[in-house]
């Protein structure tokens, strides 16, 4: 069942940011959220994470209304990697990863062996064991993203939500990070800008515009020159059967 939404909407004042979105995430799959800037991708992710309350409709986790579950129980299931998560504090890498254990620890109880094991395993998974003692502020953008993913993994989630995790990363690190996410034994929802990365790493795609779903399906079904012209207002050539059997997109200058 995993995550699903039923006509979920979110409004600020008179503005509708997310407009009656219905979607189902297949357990164990990777869902890509596409759409131009301001199309509501980040807001939809926040609704899926339960950190914003829907103005209408429902977000369901295994069929239960997310709003009725305890915050702590939600945090044991759903982990979030935000877009620009920054801190003023002088934290080292393992401090940040340890934050992921908060939903698992009872009040007043200190860190136990299970916590330490989860932190060590999460660090190993993103290949940051050697940097465990490094200060957060000395890390590069790619390393910071990986630390946040390790923190999310320390939560031992079944669902992982990522908001444009490849922003500001070079090509190598983009591929590296998405391959990592893809290998994890979790259901993931990733907001992405890069259509080729979406085609390569997602099982299904949902395209948003103005808060509404305008297309949904497999990458081959969704990524067509017509849709790209309509949603992004650019001309594109799509090779439906690109490398590895996924479509590849090449943009062309000039109006569509």
């Amino acid at each position, binding site marked *: 069942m995993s995550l699903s939404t039923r006509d979920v909407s979110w409004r600020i004042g008179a503005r509708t940011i997310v407009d009656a979105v219905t979607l189902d995430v297949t357990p164990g799959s990777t869902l890509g959220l596409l759409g131009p800037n301001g199309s509501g991708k980040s807001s939809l992710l*926040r609704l899926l*994470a*339960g*950190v914003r309350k829907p103005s209408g409709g429902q977000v369901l986790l295994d069929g239960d209304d997310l709003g009725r579950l*305890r*915050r*702590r*129980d*939600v*945090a*044991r299931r*759903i*982990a*979030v990697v*935000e877009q620009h*998560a*920054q*801190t*003023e*504090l*002088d*934290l080292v890498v393992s*401090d*940040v990863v340890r*934050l*992921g254990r*908060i*939903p698992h*620890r009872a*009040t*007043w109880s*200190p*860190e136990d062996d299970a916590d*330490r094991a989860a932190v*060590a395993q999460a660090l190993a998974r993103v290949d940051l064991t050697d940097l465990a003692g490094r*200060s957060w*502020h*000395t890390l590069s953008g790619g390393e910071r993203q990986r630390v946040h993913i390790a923190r999310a993994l320390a*939560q031992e989630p079944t669902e992982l939500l990522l908001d444009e995790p490849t922003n500001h990363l070079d090509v190598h690190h983009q591929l590296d990070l998405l391959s990592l996410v893809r290998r994890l034994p979790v259901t993931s929802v990733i907001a992405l800008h890069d259509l080729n990365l979406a085609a390569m790493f997602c099982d299904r795609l949902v395209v948003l515009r103005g808060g509404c779903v305008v297309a949904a399906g497999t990458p081959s079904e969704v990524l067509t020159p017509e849709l790209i012209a309509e949603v992004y207002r650019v001309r594109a050539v799509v090779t439906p059967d690109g490398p590895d059997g996924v479509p590849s997109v090449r943009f062309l200058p000039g109006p569509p």
Partner: protein
Amino acid sequence: MITEAVRGARWALWAAGLATLVLSVAVAITIGPADLSVRDVFGVVGQHLGLGDAGVSRIRDGIVWELRLPRTLLAAVCGAGLAICGAIMQSLLRNPLADPFVLGISSGASTGAVLVVILGVGGGILTLSTGAFIGAVVAFALVLLLAAGAGGTPDRVVLAGVAATQLFSALTSFIVTSSADAEQTRGVLFWLLGSLSGAGWADVVTCGTVCVVGLVVCITLAPALDAFAFGEDAAASLGISVRWVRLLLLVVTALITATLVSAAGAIGFVGLVLPHAARAVVGPGHRLLLPATALIGAIFLVWVDTVARTVFSPQELPVGVVTALVGVPAFAVILYRRRRPV
């Protein structure tokens, strides 16, 4: 990874810290006229706790038990309380420059105090302390309302606090300049800068109780405070009920601060600087940071108050002046040592 040796060393550090606090209190009491020894101090305390005659004259017994001990203990309690409140404000508002007075509490207290002392509001029933406490609570309530109306994000809370601080400082200045005589003005100014003179056992018990209860609440919420490191959405996604935790912590710190300010005035700088010093020693995790901050704050203010009452003896300095004079260079050192490679 934390080894047994590290854990053992940590306990030793806590024990050393507590011993330093107890010794600081005892030694601070001996400083000043009356030529007391640490032994006399422990003897007097033991005698009052029913542990046998200390052989100290009644006058010197009075100096220790009625004057210096409550005063020194109040200094320790104020130092601990203000430092904890500062640490919590900095974490909650994600602002390293936040202190316990950022929400207008000290200026609200000053307005309450001058209303009672200078304008005679309350008809002689209200004391300066009560007036200050009421003023502090009113200012805090106003800040909460303003902040909630403006969206409740940390930067709005800070802005609302700045607005309230300005408003109540202006009111205080207005009342002082328009109706106080020189003597009253001097008295009010002295109180505003913080003073532990005249501390009695009642103050120690009230402030001590509020601080201990507050510290327990805050340590219970330590994981939530840790979760705020990357902002409120990040905290929410770690399972924290952000609105509830934030409101509870703001109210608890406001009550601690208001109680301390009404007993000892607005002692500045303790709440701003000492949390940074504590972070440099035990790191950013709040389960260790809050007790460490309390301990360092207590030791610090015991010594600062000793300096304040003895340097120009018999003339006293406002303790807030000394905290700033000692605190600013300390702050500069911390800033310098914590500078990051850009």
